[in-house]
């Protein structure tokens, strides 16, 4: 049975340390890597297959909460913004890759993972530092942490040439969420896939705020209301061609996402309803080709064009009327060359080019254009028990602006060009031949560019911003043991200790010559010390009963060491835990499978946090923890393979907030019906 494979919980195995050269097929992005021949020297976590499917998650952001070291900022509801931060380095330091190519947002650097539904996602992997694979584009070296989302690829059973899948989801928040998937074998070497999904939800849910008296513990006030203006209406279309060549692979994919949503906004005294709206339209076309040219030499070519449109409307006439649109385009091309010097040493040279533009109707906005070239030189070597990877990334950024909407007399100046060279080094050591035990360590220095908003946004942008740097140091180990013929069939443990530093952090600071105005500056300094522990257990009982547990725990001290002009004020924030990072957080997933039934229980805990680095009672944010349950049954109905699931989320009906004044849903449910042909 396929699901017995320990890869379900996907901490990639180290069992097979054989060196794979010219592993074109196995390592191609877009192909499910079925082997374990990776030179996996970098801490990674992965969720895939059944265990990912049975997690009660609406979007990718919900699933990512189960990883150690990851913090999700969730503004609540189906349409609410959800951004991810790894090891407290900041959202802008995350690279999110969809089917192998990075999703860009040059405007504000944020990828809203709430927009990516789990419907067509087959696996989610996260890497600290970068992926353990040197044969990749230069961009893959360019983030402090990366998330790889992989959509479903067409795979056909022996005689079938067509796959069809229809799914219908409904539940709380007036959710209507149908999706279809069609896969066709066009020729022996070419497969076609089309997938579409529609989401409609009112986003309405009850929430509750309550305060009690300090002494008597009696209720001071207790208010329940319905979350308003959180509705969403979204359509996703995705289509791809997947082909094989002689010693090579290629794919082309088109993606469209269009949505209209309400922005529910903060709940504050006397304002329980907002009316701001947002429209998004994201389109991209991307392709990838990988081929073994001669023995020992592989080439990989990637290209992408993306066109993103966003409109923000504030129709509330008691406030400033705003109707702004932002239009971004991205052109991207990459060539990676891998050469195997010997069976033990590979080197890779990648060169990427990227061009970004942003136009807007925002008053006083210049239209920036950014030309980025990246060159990465990487090497991987294996000497018996020791594996190593090293890379150097050169980033060269040039910007230009056109006058855009600036009025005559105002200056329109581009930020100076930036050239940065940043290294990374990874090491893995397997001390015992018989034990599957590995020690690993890494160092990586990388940066994030200031976004177009940081540099050019009318009035607050600052063109003299420098990149924001991160320095990561990690030491950890992984241990795996399987027991044949025992009920306790597999155990896996991985632990990492890390120290990170963020310097030149880009922060909005108050700006004079008027009240309440801001300016972006490179003033922040953050140090993060953390521990991550992930452990999996697999039990196999007689009569096809399979039991899985997965626990993840994270400890983080993420402290603000920003120096301030006022020594008095510095006392309030210096050394304080940075906003919304809890010291302790963890998750627990368990599932039991019996024949066609599967039951899943998952639990998430996020400890107490503070809303800002002044860690005083006024800024205290409660811990929260939710339990989710799901039950799934697979059955055959005539020629159709069916699957029915019921999900119950926030079982204990906890009233909680991830972000101040953004209440989260109470108990809610979902029903899923899937039919496959």
């Amino acid at each position, binding site marked *: 049975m396929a699901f017995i494979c320990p890869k379900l919980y996907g901490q990639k195995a180290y069992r097979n340390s054989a060196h794979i050269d010219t592993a074109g097929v196995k390592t191609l992005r877009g192909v499910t890597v079925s082997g374990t021949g990776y030179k996996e020297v970098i801490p990674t976590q992965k969720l895939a297959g059944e265990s990912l499917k049975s997690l009660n998650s609406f979007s990718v952001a919900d699933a990512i909460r189960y990883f150690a070291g990851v913090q999700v900022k969730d503004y609540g509801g189906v349409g609410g913004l959800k951004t991810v931060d790894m090891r407290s380095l900041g959202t802008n330091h995350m690279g999110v890759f969809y089917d192998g190519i990075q999703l860009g947002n040059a405007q504000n650097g944020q990828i809203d993972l709430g927009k990516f539904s789990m419907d067509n996602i087959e696996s989610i992997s996260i890497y600290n530092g970068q992926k353990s694979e040197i044969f990749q584009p230069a961009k893959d070296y360019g983030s402090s942490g990366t998330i790889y989302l992989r959509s479903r690829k067409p795979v056909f059973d022996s005689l079938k040439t067509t796959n069809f899948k229809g799914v219908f989801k409904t539940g709380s928040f007036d959710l209507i969420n149908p999706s279809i998937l069609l896969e066709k074998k066009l020729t022996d070497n070419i497969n076609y896939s089309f997938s579409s999904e529609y989401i409609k939800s009112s986003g309405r849910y009850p929430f509750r705020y309550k305060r009690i008296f300090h002494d008597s513990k009696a209720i001071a006030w207790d208010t329940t209301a319905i979350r308003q203006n959180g509705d969403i209406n979204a359509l996703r279309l995705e289509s791809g061609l997947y082909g094989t060549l002689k010693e090579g692979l290629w794919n082309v994919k088109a993606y469209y996402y269009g949505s209209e949503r309400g922005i529910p906004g903060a709940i504050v005294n006397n304002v329980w309803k907002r009316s701001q709206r947002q429209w998004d339209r994201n389109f991209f076309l991307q392709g990838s080709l990988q081929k073994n040219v001669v023995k020992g030499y592989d080439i990989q070519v990637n290209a992408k064009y993306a066109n993103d449109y966003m409109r923000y409307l504030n129709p509330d006439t008691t406030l400033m009327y705003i109707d702004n649109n932002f239009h971004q385009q991205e052109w991207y091309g990459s060539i990676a060359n891998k050469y195997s010097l010997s069976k033990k040493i590979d080197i890779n040279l990648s060169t990427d080019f990227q061009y970004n533009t942003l136009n807007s109707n925002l008053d006083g906005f210049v239209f920036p254009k950014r030309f980025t070239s990246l060159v990465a030189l990487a090497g991987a070597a294996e000497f018996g028990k020791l594996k190593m990877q090293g890379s150097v990334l050169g980033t060269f950024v040039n910007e230009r602006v056109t006058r855009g909407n600036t009025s005559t007399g105002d200056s329109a100046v581009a930020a100076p060009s930036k050239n940065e060279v940043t290294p990374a080094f990874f090491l893995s050591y397997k001390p015992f031949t018989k034990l599957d035990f590995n020690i690993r360590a890494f160092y990586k220095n990388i940066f994030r560019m200031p976004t177009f908003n940081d540099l050019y946004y009318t009035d607050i942008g600052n063109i003299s911003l420098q990149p924001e740097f991160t320095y990561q140091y990690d030491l950890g180990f992984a241990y795996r043991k399987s027991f044949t013929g025992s009920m306790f069939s597999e155990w896996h443990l991985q632990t990492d200790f890390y120290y990170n530093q963020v310097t030149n952090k880009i922060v909005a600071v108050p700006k*004079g010559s008027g009240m*309440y105005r801001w*300016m972006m500056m490179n003033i922040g300094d953050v140090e993060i010390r953390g521990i991550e522990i992930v452990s999996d257990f697999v039990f196999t009982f007689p009569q096809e009963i399979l039991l899985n547990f997965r626990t993840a*725990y994270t400890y983080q001290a993420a402290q603000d060491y920003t120096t301030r*002009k006022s020594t008095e004020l510095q006392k309030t924030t210096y050394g304080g835990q940075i906003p919304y990072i809890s010291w302790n957080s963890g998750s627990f997933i368990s599932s039991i499978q019996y024949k066609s039934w599967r039951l899943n229980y998952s639990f998430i805990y996020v400890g107490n946090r503070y809303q800002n680095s002044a860690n005083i009672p006024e800024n205290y944010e409660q811990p929260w*923890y939710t339990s989710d349950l799901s039950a799934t049954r697979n059955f055959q109905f005539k020629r159709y393979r069916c699957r029915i699931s019921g999900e119950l989320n926030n079982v204990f009906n906890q009233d909680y907030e991830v972000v101040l004044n953004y209440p989260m849903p109470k108990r809610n449910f979902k029903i899923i019906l899937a039919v496959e042909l």
Partner: protein
Amino acid sequence: MRKRYLFLNILLLLIFVASSCRKDVEVFINEDTSLDTSTQNGFLGFYLLNEGNMGSNKSTLDYFDYTTGKYKRNIYAAVNPTVPKELGDVGNDIAIYGNRLYAVINASNKVEVMDAITAKRIGQIEIPNCRYIKFDKGFAYITSYAGPIQINPNYTQKGYVAKVDTTTLSIVDKCIVGFQPDGLEITNGKIYVANSGGYMGAGNTAKYERTVSVIDVATFKEDKRIDVAYNLDHIIADKRGDLWVTSRGDYKQLPSRLYFIDNAAQKVTDTIPIAVSNYYLDGDSLYIYSTEWSYITYSNVVTYAIVDTRTHKVVSRSFITDGTDKEIEIPYGIMVHPVTKNIYVTDAGNYVTPGMLYCFTKAGKKKWSVRTGDIPAHFVLLPKS
């Protein structure tokens, strides 16, 4: 053996969950700090309204008690524990009239009305996007950005002044003024309103508002406009009924300035070459601070000045004399005690974490400082009744 690992793991998880469970959130209790000895100076104390960052709902009220020398931080929730979501979002002005305290809470679209001595809530006046408040003959006058809407694509929304009966707390009349009215002043039977145009032309200065509206108190109709400068902010009348108006400038070429409107001539007759962020009038001395952003040093240039309202001369450019000004990140509120002449200046810090309140002697030497709420901004003295 192996099972033990599992149980250990689950046990550990349960322990850390159980040990850090959530409790019901309690109402805030104010913190008291002793700063000074008890003093007799004609006032019981003063309130300081902290704005709080927009969306944080952290507008809070602090009180300094002259009779005990104690600073009470964050008193609103302690005094009014049953009010859902406390004082509100972005406090913009505070005033005392009769025996009542009025706090204008901009992003909560209301004026909170409290007892002046206890800060106990009496009620609220619903005014969307309300800005500043002044009183005259039993009525409160409150500026608001949220004027009426017209179906006209080229229409830009004007603001208004609401006239509120302080006995019933109901709006009895509205008078449409210019774009985004901010500060107002009432003198000689006229209401003067500084129209800011704050929502206009970040890109184009030409469209900025630049007038003061003059409203007749008796008829509550706009009499006329006085042309002053772009982006007006504060307005105050001196002893002679002449008006001092501040302009924020356009944040680009046009600097912030202080303008003088002659009451008899009803027009601008003088411009003082000094930038003004905020001021406080004590007798004939206008205490001013200004923060100007310098694109050369990429920092704020701050000046603490005094203008003599009789001579129109800048008589001091540093009323803080002991070097404490170098400690202040961004001054945000100012008050001068009419009897002791102590000068109070607040520091809004980085806007998202707590600020500071400094008390200086008349000579500009620091007496004490204390941590406040987020963005400490607006003062009002509580007189002995």
